[in-house]
């Protein structure tokens, strides 16, 4: 029975397909990973649900409350958008590190999140941006924080009848500075270890950190926030010892896995190095343009 391609023009149409067929109506956004799996028969859905022509899934709006990004926004859109550059530059930094030019031209933020492959570049950055995703079904729309969204190895909170429609990023606190660092054999690879850091200064104590957010990718079945490490330093002075301690704790929170590119132990050791470097990069960016906008 030949596989069907359904190309809905509205969310309603798309969501009713999902309601009817659930996982058998597999949404396809950029298709850069999905079509490889399809060609090699790792997946065999009855229907491919092409999200390309749904207007509501497009567009990137910068509002006072933050930035709202349509799921079908491509990596190229992100790394070349002036709104992203000014409001959430960390996201542009991470998007520029995904795959190759051709993949960045078609690959989308929604597809990247729903595929949830360990070592992907956007998740750590979006985690430290406190992003959340809007999941819509025909009956309801719900907002899920990214930490809840990443459920398990290649698994997310998207229910069979739902489609990820938008990514919402709240406005960054004054003076917040971020950095994303990726360790890989070649730049276009999935990360052996990917670390994103967001440094929010303390309003009153100049050299203390109000809030340090650390997002880790490639070092566990899911991307995650190093909550313990963050707790150890929030509100404290960020000197060398504090940074080293944060890096140690973050490494202990990981559950890395081995593959031909790197062993689990090496991944854990790299977290220590990359967390220190990401914090240094974020702090250096803080000095460079004073306490202005991110």
């Amino acid at each position: 029975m030949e596989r069907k391609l359904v190309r809905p023009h509205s969310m309603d149409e798309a969501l009713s397909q999902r309601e009817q067929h659930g996982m058998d109506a597999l949404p396809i956004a950029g298709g850069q990973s999905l079509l490889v799996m399809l060609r090699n028969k790792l997946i065999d859905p009855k229907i491919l649900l092409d999200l390309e022509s749904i207007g509501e899934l497009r567009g990137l709006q910068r509002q006072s409350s933050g930035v709202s990004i349509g799921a079908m926004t491509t990596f190229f859109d992100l790394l070349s958008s002036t709104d992203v550059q000014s409001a959430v530059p960390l996201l542009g930094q991470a998007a520029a590190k995904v795959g190759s030019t051709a993949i960045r031209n078609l690959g989308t933020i929604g597809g990247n999140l729903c595929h949830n492959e360990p070592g992907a570049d956007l998740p750590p950055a979006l985690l430290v941006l406190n992003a959340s995703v809007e999941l819509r079904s025909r009956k309801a729309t719900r907002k899920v924080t990214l930490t809840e969204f990443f459920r398990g190895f290649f698994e997310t909170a998207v229910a069979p009848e739902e489609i990820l429609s938008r990514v919402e990023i709240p406005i960054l606190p004054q003076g917040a500075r971020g950095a994303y660092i990726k360790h890989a054999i070649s730049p276009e690879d999935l990360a052996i270890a990917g670390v994103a850091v967001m440094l929010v200064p303390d309003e009153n104590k100049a050299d203390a950190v109000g809030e340090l957010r650390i997002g880790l990718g490639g070092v566990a079945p899911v991307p995650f926030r190093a909550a313990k490490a963050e707790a150890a330093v929030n509100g404290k002075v960020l000197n060398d010892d504090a940074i080293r301690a944060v890096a140690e704790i973050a490494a202990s929170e990981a559950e890395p896995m081995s593959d031909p590119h790197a062993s689990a132990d090496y991944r854990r050791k790299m977290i220590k190095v990359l967390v220190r470097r990401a914090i240094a990069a974020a702090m250096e960016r803080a000095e460079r343009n004073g306490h202005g906008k991110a």
Partner: protein
Amino acid sequence: MGNLKVKQPSYSSIGKSAPRIEGEKKVSGAALYTADHLLPGTVWGKVLRSPYAHARIKRLDTERAKAHPGVLAVLTAADIPAVLTGRRLRDMPMLARERARFIGEKIAVVAAADRNVAEEAGQLIEVDYEELTPVFDPLAAITEGAPELHECLAEYQGLPQIGTRLKNTYSHEEWLLGDVERGFRESDHVFEDRFATQHVHQSYLEPHSSLVSIEPDSGIIHVWVSNKVPYNTKNSLADAVGVPPEKIVIHVSAIGGDFGGKGALMDLPLCYFLAQRLNRPVRMIMTYTEELTAANPRHAAQILVKTGLKKDGRIIARQIKVYWNGGAYGAMKPIPTVNLPGAVKAAGSYFIPNVRVDSYAIYTNSVPCGHFRSPGLVQLAFAGESQIDMIAEALKMDPLHLRLRNALKDGDPTVDQKGMVEVQCKEVLEAAAAVTKWKHFKKPAQVGRGMALSYRHVGLGDANARMSVKPDGRISILTTYADTGTGAHTILCQMVAEVLDVPFNQVGLEVGTTDTFRSESGTGASRVTFVLGQAVLKAAAKLKSLLCERAAAMLGVSSDQVILKNGRLRVDQDSARSLSLAELARAATDKSFQLEVESYHAEHETPPEGVFAACVAEVHVDVATGQVTLRKLDTVHDVATVLNPVGHQGQIDGGIMQGVGYVLMEELAMEDGRVTTANFGEYKIPNIQDTPLLKTTLVHSREGASPFQSKEIGESAISQVAPAIANAIYDAVGVRVKDLPITAEKVYRALKERRAENQRPSSK
């Protein structure tokens, strides 16, 4: 002799960067590779492969597969002749017969009009396997307890009768000079080291493809195949499938990269059996996962190097034992000894009076290995040239001086040459030192430089050529040698334009089929310019005398009064009386005789002239992650006449980057015989962002074995890159990694061990 600035004789076409003659087709998308021939009615063939590394096939039931809608045929070993195939050693069945010996070995083949149907139907074939104990490490395979992979090895056709027979070993090649035991006894220092190298894939972008179409009435078997040795392939296909060779016509088409990996039969026999059964053209194109898991990669190896020196740094003894992981079959190896050609140069580019090399090709239950650019030498150069730096360190000598101290010179014997000639070893080393300011290099932190040296010979074989003048006066060369990308066809046209004194663009080249000539070696081993070049020059000489003879008859003079000068046949001292080639050609057709000649040339003796090359690599090592960044790569090449500078530089840059991939990132990672890096996301080869600053220096000498005093370049740019980078990493951060590839993790671990050793209170 210093950097001999030899005044090159002034040529008109030779020495120019003539544009690639097939280039226009390639940049416009018109070049036809095997998979681009679309014949109406063509169906797909797809293979079912063994999931076990070593197993007995007890039951094979294809009924459900045959019944699957869209399936046209399913063949297993029972449906085809029990003939073993191989380029030299015939030890490989076309489909596994009762025994599977590696993960990926072909069990059955399915034909269907739709590619997906052909792929899916394989899963419906029921196979009962009885697992047998596998062996993956060559050193384990030769021990008594190891399983015997080929019980009837002694009966195989093409089994070399050399060396001693170890278990599971199909070839043991020995190279001897002097008495190595005595050499070690007389040595003041003896160093012994073990090195290990990994499986790597040639990574030509065109996957192996074959297309077979059989003419209904005449039974002529038309073949298009990504294979560079059409005549060998025609004869081995004929033997394999039991048809007379004259029935087979192989149309030589463009090949999308070879580097030594496209010389075996691969899927061709199965493609034939299906075409013969279905009376329809059948195409088989390997997916890249099949390429990376079941083609014919470069051999992994365990290498032991033992070197003895006198106090003054003279190397007087070197013994090398190399255990090649040959994989499940030796069928992919083309040379008579069914061993690796690099073994003869295991001792390196040095005059060493006492040398012993033992090179063992051993069966294991992993992918059968084949040739990849300078096969054997790339692995052995990594071991040998790494150890030279380790010795220099131990003797507190500059690695440059240790090399200069022992460098080969004219007249020096080696294990296979009575006396080397035209040796440029010192010159290449001195040029490398000069151009990189080796002696006064101020080393920034975590930056290091390393050097390495190797040499090669040009390849042997035979070749035919036909040459004619077309009615429009253009000269046409006809060959059945494929240009796998090296640019050899362009060079042949430059040669003919030069000797016949016609403009380059008046010479064309066509590629024939295996009907054109009787037989020849085919592309490979950097032999094309050397062997086919001489065949073409012989044809050009014959054509020239034929033209002068015909012109003389037309101009009413004796043939020795006629000369061929800038495109016209002229009467000597009276050049007003002349004929153009077009006039001569037209006259020829009226008198119904062809202006066509044919020639043949063979080379069986390796010329005593070695082609030397050195490399100086500069790296930065990030000590926190172990990541190595290649900052600069200087290479120095021993050349005489450079026939086509752009083409020559392309061979150098391409060879270098394959060397860079080999040392820093490439590995067909294996777990219990299964290749786990099954696509280019997992099997990493250098991409455009990995190319560092490359600087080439040419050291000119007068003579070269190839036409117009030129020297080999195709395979001499790769072998010294890996050891140079390994030595640079040691120079940067003091860690010596002796098993390839040198990944960030290995450098990181070695750095940690070194730091731990330094902190441990010294044992004294």
